[in-house]
């Protein structure tokens, strides 16, 4: 073996060993899978309520993208589910009717019927809101239970109250936490004003409650006979201070340790789309929800409720019947608007011609024009946008579990007339059936997997419900490597568990892949061997072009290392990591802790402390007051880049200050007291801004002067400039964006932009992404052309690159792939810096490259197409020309001049030829996959690969 080969082998082994040690992937299944319930939650501390604004939510949901969406290179599976894909029982959801049929009595009872408002004595009215968006009354009965009373709009008795009763009962049966609702009828004398009651005036101001306030509210409500009013009474929790406000449909609550799955990825929230469509709850969203602090099983926790369903079924957002486009169009949809405008009123969608019964209590609710796939809430809801076929299947399965009788039982709780009850029941039945037909087609709708002796059995829900004719299924059995989450060789076919599976030791796994006519629609059931049989522990549903998005790229090898920080920076960071370790129970050293930070967190900590340390403070006489960094006692939190958060919650440090800091800031000539923070920097109202032109530090102090939120503003904050120059965006404080680094250096010299070696400068839009942009518009598999004969010379560069990559990574035709290699590329294989090493000849280089290509292909495993093997990147520079080609999803293709390409030449001494070059860049689609760049040019009328460079991901 030549010295090169030995060296290469040693290096290969070393890399492989390091790579193995560096990766510790979790197994697919754990011994306790599948969990039926979430583990006992951690107790929560005293929490503060946090309200939302309906109007702000509507505006933000319409004009901003909130929460994470599926990246273009794959989908993010739902979270908060067990290994069977079922939502676990817990504080979000409890499996009810869909799992264990509830009795008619249970369906009728809903969340509870044991605590209706007592009628032995009049109800004491505590609060009246006769005006505003949500009029109602807060009453107390003789048991001192509190109820929120909501009435119907004038002229539409039963419309809103019936919708609330029916929808809340359905949501309860579907598994959600909902409050107890009671349908009550009362006469005016039943309500008496409490002496200390409050009213909200028509100007929104609280004042003492008058009897006339109650009358004013009732004047706006229908009464059956001029005397009797109908309302829905919602029972409030016993603990008055336990209402924490709505939960968002994206992100997590920052004060709830048990809230670990982003809401936009929770299955029960994604699936809520289907339930909302069924019940025509077009106003579903954050505002109708409520987080409630409660104690269960001795643990204080937050339970998440769905409430306020008065705008469901036929009841509309303006208080009367729905406008017919509610549920069929979003509040603002540019595409629909353009179509409607240009059609000049000729285009008439089916729902516009729907027939309604003309019953006030029903409003506009029907089932004949209902299209579950086209239904839409009025606003963009992050969780709904992220729904996948398995999420909608999960939900559709729940809906289809309701029989006609079940539906009528629940509708009856709405207290409708017979005609109204019949209509709504028929509409819900029709909508249910359409939901089954629509969403059972997105996956292979197999369910209720079980073992009958040695045979795997299941139900096809489409067949069970008469949607599909009976069909034949193919079941292929595989060994399954749980540690690597990999299906191995086939060991049998058919419903019976094959003998080879039975030979699996206890704790081992076998998988059964089941499909019918379409192999891309399959279900994989995972079985775990136990001593005396098997348990079904996992289910996976696949649909055409399902590609799971690769996990977030790993930490960077060349991130800023802790040692490069100054002593003072290290000291401060240690205070942060000590506090982290104490809370977490971990034992990270400061170095380890720093390396665990994301790049944005590192740059934030480094940038801000650098600016602070380079800001000397003096008083009016010129005497030194130390540096701004000296004011910091310790670091509480480092806020980097967080998708969906406001600009004032990102790119800042939350610190503890030395006690005299406020005095020092007041005395210093370098800081001035700015306007109080009334909207942003919540909790830190006292703003001290560094004098001089931007960039400048802003220290926002809490009321006690001992805590602060510190950030750097790179853009002017004064109106009107501040409104238009990005000051209000997160890019304002992100040192990596645009010219911010240069601006920083201009004021505080000596700053090193450690990330730029790898990532370059971030553009404004790309500030929303921490690392390389994976987003692509289409995750579908790009069809591969037929294999070209060996020696073929495609005319277009994209075809040549595709052929090379396909030969290499898909077909494993390495020799054919190597044909495109230019001799110029051999120089890339010159070994090390040892001048005694001999450059490889052409034959040697080919052999070495062959072994490398084989290794790479083996690491990737079998890939059916290029789409599953690689993903293209977005260039950082928005001006970079990108060639549009059929495989743009798989690899980036960009033209380069010779000058641009020269840094990547294998042989730096190569003479200039003025040739045109092309770069092909992609990332391997595998855990920890890196980025490879290929340089191409025309040589003798053929496209040749002249250089390759791995790039750090």
């Amino acid at each position, binding site marked *: 073996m030549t010295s090169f080969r030995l*060296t*290469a082998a040693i290096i*290969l082994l070393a*890399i*492989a060993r390091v*790579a193995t040690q560096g990766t510790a992937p979790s197994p697919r299944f*754990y011994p306790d899978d599948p*969990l039926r319930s979430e*583990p006992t939650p*951690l107790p929560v501390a005293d929490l503060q309520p946090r*309200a939302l*604004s309906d*109007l*702000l939510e509507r505006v933000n949901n319409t004009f901003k993208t909130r929460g994470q969406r599926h990246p273009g290179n794959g989908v993010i599976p739902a979270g908060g589910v067990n290994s069977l894909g079922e939502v676990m029982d817990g504080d979000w959801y409890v499996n009810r009717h869909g799992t264990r049929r509830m009795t008619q009595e249970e369906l009728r009872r809903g969340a509870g019927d044991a605590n209706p408002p007592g009628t032995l004595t009049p109800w004491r009215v505590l609060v009246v809101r006769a*005006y505003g968006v949500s009029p109602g009354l807060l009453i107390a009965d003789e048991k001192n239970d509190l109820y929120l009373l909501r009435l119907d709009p004038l002229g539409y008795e039963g419309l809103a109250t019936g919708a609330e009763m029916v929808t809340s009962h359905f949501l309860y049966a579907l598994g959600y936490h909902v409050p107890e609702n009671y349908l009550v009828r009362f006469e005016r004398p039943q309500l008496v004003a409490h002496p200390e009651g409050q009213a909200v005036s028509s*100007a929104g*101001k609280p*004042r003492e409650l008058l009897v006339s*306030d109650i009358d*004013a509210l009732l004047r706006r409500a229908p009464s059956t006979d001029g005397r009797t009013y109908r309302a829905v009474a919602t029972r409030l929790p016993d603990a008055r201070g336990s209402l924490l406000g709505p939960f968002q449909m994206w992100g997590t609550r*920052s*004060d709830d*340790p048990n809230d*670990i799955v982003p809401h936009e990825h929770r299955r029960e929230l994604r699936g809520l789309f289907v339930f909302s469509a069924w019940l025509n709850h077009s106003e579903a969203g954050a505002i109708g929800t409520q987080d409630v602090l409660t104690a269960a099983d001795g643990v204080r926790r937050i339970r998440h409720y769905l409430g306020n369903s008065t705008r469901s079924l036929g009841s509309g957002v303006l208080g009367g019947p729905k406008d017919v486009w509610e549920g069929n169009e979003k*509040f*603002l949809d540019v595409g629909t608007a353009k179509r*409607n*405008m240009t059609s*000049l*009123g000729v285009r*008439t969608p089916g729902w*516009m011609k*729907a027939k309604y019964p003309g019953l006030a209590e029903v409003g*506009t609710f029907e089932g004949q024009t209902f299209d579950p796939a086209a239904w839409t809430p*009025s606003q963009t809801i992050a969780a709904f946008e992220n729904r996948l076929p398995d999420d909608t299947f999960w939900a559709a399965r729940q809906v289809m579990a309701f029989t006609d009788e079940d539906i009528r039982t629940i509708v009856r709780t709405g207290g409708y007339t017979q005609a109204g009850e019949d209509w709504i029941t028929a509409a819900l039945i029709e909508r249910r059936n359409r939901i089954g037909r629509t969403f059972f087609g997105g996956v292979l709708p197999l369910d209720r997997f079980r073992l009958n002796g040695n045979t795997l059995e299941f139900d096809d829900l489409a067949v069970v419900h008469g949607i599909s004719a009976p069909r034949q299924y193919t079941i292929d059995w595989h060994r399954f490597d749980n540690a690597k989450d990999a299906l191995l060789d086939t060991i049998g076919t058919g419903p019976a568990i094959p003998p080879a599976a039975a030979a699996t030791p206890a704790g081992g796994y076998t998988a059964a892949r089941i499909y019918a006519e379409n192999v891309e629609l399959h279900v994989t059931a995972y079985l775990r061997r136990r001593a005396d049989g098997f348990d079904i522990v996992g289910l996976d549903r696949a649909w055409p072009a399902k590609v799971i998005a690769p996990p977030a790229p*790993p*930490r960077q090898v060349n991130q800023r290392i802790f040692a490069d920080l100054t002593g003072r920076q290290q000291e401060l960071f240690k205070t942060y990591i000590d506090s*982290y370790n104490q*809370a977490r*129970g*971990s034992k990270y050293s400061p170095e380890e802790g720093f*390396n665990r930070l994301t790049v944005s967190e590192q740059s934030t900590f480094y940038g801000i402390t650098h600016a602070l340390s380079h800001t000397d403070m003096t008083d009016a006489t010129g005497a030194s007051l130390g540096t701004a960094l000296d004011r910091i006692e310790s670091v509480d*939190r480092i806020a980097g880049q967080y998708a969906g958060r*406001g600009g004032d919650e990102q790119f800042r440090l939350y610190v503890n200050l030395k006690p005299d800091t406020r005095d020092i800031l007041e005395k210093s000539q370098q800081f001035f007291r700015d306007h109080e923070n009334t909207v942003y920097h*919540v909790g830190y109202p006292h703003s001290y801004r560094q004098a001089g032109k931007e960039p400048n530090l802003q220290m926002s102090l809490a009321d006690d002067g001992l805590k602060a939120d510190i950030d750097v503003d790179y853009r002017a904050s004064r109106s009107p400039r501040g409104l238009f120059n990005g000051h209000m965006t997160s890019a304002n404080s992100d040192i990596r964006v645009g010219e911010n680094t240069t601006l920083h250096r201009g004021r505080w010299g000596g700053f090193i932009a450690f990330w730029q070696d*790898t990532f370059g400068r971030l553009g404004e839009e790309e500030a929303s992404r921490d690392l390389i942009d994976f987003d692509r518009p289409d995750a579908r598999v790009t069809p591969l052309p037929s294999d070209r004969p060996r020696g073929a010379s495609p005319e277009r560069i994209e075809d040549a690159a595709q052929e090379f990559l396909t030969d290499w990574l898909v077909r494993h035709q390495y020799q054919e792939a190597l044909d495109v290699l230019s001799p110029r590329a051999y*120089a890339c294989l*010159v*070994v090390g*810096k040892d001048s005694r090493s001999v450059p490889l000849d052409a034959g040697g280089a080919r052999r*070495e490259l062959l072994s490398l290509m084989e290794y790479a292909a083996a690491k990737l495993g079998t890939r059916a197409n290029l789409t599953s093997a690689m993903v293209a990147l977005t260039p950082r520079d928005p001006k970079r020309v990108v060639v549009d080609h059929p495989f743009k999803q798989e690899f980036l293709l960009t033209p380069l001049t010779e000058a641009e390409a020269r*840094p*990547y030449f294998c042989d730096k001494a190569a003479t200039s030829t003025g040739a045109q070059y092309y770069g092909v860049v992609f990332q391997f689609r*595998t855990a*920890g996959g890196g980025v490879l760049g290929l340089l191409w040019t025309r040589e003798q009328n053929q496209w040749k690969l002249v250089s*390759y*460079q*791995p*790039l*750090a991901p």
Partner: protein
Amino acid sequence: MNAGRHASSVGAVMLLLAIDSAARAQEPATNVPATRAEAIADARDDKVAELWPERQSPLVNKVNALVERGFKEGLDSGRGANGPQIVLGGMRPGQGFTAGVGYRRSDLWRERLGYRATARGTLQGAYLLDFDLDFQGLRTERTSMRWYTKFESSPDIDFYGQGNSSPKENHTSYAYDDLTSDFDAAFRAARHVRLGFTGGYLHAHTARGHDDFPPIDESFAPKDIPGFGESTDYTRMGAFVDFDFRDSPTGPRRGGMYGMRYREYWDVARGTFAFRQTEYELQQYLPYFNGGRIVALRAALVLSFPKEENAVPVYLLPTLGGNDDLRGFGGYRFRDSHALYLGAEHRWHVTSNLEMAAFVDGGKVVPLKRDAVDPTNLNFSGGFGFRVRARSAVVSRTDFAFSREGFRIVWTFSDIYKPRW
């Protein structure tokens, strides 16, 4: 691509790095979870280390307070929310883009009294100050009372002479200032049927208008511009009745309104301009396709009769032309003792907040009543437009109108087909 990679590197290592670059920082010696429950617990522990108070944005409080200030009712009624307001439109047409400020309170004296005051103006020098007092406490299910006072100065009211054939070449203008104060009381006699009484005071002052045009008093004889150049005080009293079953007064989609108002004017000092004026209003909204399409129809008739040896002052004669009728013609294009307007619109849904409309307007002015009810010799205009809605109200209207006299773009902040009372 990245620069700076040294060329003399081990190709194998580099390529393998590309495949195998899972070089994460080594995890410290913590336990790898053995169960799913442990994995979930680990994730929760990670969250514990990063807990942060969930804080409410003050912007939420501000917006909620704005909404609670009667935003909903203010939009539906057209009076705006309580507290400070930005006011757009609402002045006499043809004076330019109107903007101003206002203030409204509807909860005075424990909801018994409400008021709204506004000050508005245009860059062309027109301005308006008004005060609207609503006796809500005296309002029952059947009664309502209101007192409205306004001063408005309009430096440029177009005038082309009287008659349906008044030539465009006669274009001149006059300035018109008026102070009005009216008290209205209404009684709901039956469902949707309202009877009302109105009485008030009007002070009118006219002068020459825009310098761009020949002075009005040089272009027209005094008999053609009665009341011009004088300040006159009037009292006016009358009654009205209407059958209003529209679903919304500020942006109806269904229903109709049929009504009339009768008022008598007395020129207090001179006894020269005593007259009576009767206004008829018929509106009908015909939705189809569940309100996705609406046919809106309107007929309006204004008849003015001077008392013996009196005249109707030129500035109180009914007019046609402008933003609210005969949209293809300039403001106040046609003026005479009697005016007839007929209009039709076909509206269609674009989004939940936007409608489009195609419309046709027809109208004429005549000196004799017998000619007023005869739908011949009408002036026509037509076009298309957009209506922006907020809740049930039309808050902005943009019309593109054509007529034999050209093309106009109308942009206002209210719906078309507004009744005159």
